[in-house]
């Protein structure tokens, strides 16, 4: 069965600290990989995506993610977080079944 694992459930950082959120998925074959963000009171928005090519992808607001195929991982990073990055972050790989299975999410709180 397909599964997604996000290792960090709650993360608290000070502004300017670096961020890395882990994501591992269980299914093989071709996958498209996504990170979504949900700001307080808002709907889910795409942060970045990977389909193919350069495994290091850049998204909005300075976020990036690296796809490591051998590790089935797609970790999210940001060198210097801001207070406005306080949100919940979801990893969501897809496979050929045309559905997005979300990880459990990581709630990030950035202290000003």
């Amino acid at each position, binding site marked *: 069965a397909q599964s997604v694992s996000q290792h960090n459930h709650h993360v608290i950082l000070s502004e300017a600290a670096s961020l890395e959120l882990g994501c591992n998925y269980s299914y093989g074959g071709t996958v*498209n990989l996504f990170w979504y963000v949900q700001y307080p009171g808002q709907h*889910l928005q*795409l942060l970045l995506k990977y389909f193919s090519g350069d495994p290091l992808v850049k998204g909005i607001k300075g976020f990036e993610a690296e796809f490591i195929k051998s590790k089935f991982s797609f970790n999210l990073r940001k060198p210097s977080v801001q207070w406005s990055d306080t949100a919940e972050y979801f990893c969501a790989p897809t496979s050929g079944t*045309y559905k*997005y299975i979300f990880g459990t999410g990581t709630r990030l709180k950035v202290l000003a």
Partner: protein
Amino acid sequence: DAMVIQNPRYQVTQFGKPVTLSCSQTLNHNVMYWYQQKSSQAPKLLFHYYDKDFNNEADTPDNFQSRRPNTSFCFLDIRSPGLGDAAMYLCATSRDLAEAFFGQGTRLTVV
């Protein structure tokens, strides 16, 4: 401009009284999804349509049904809502396996 529109934003229903949530899209996407999201949890996929083909998740209760009369609209019917069905219901669309676009959600309260 909103591309995935869910109505209503807030719905209060009585225990056991059927309720329908609606979703419309202006993106002409072929795939539409319904997710249930409870507080502090990840969105849980209930079902999705690939064009007209309906795909139910194995653990979606029979109490939940869906209709997609045309490309633009999709409905979620809860036949007999229980207290445990109170949640945010999210509609999303995608063009095949490209990124999904989400609506604002409908918050369902069961009293």
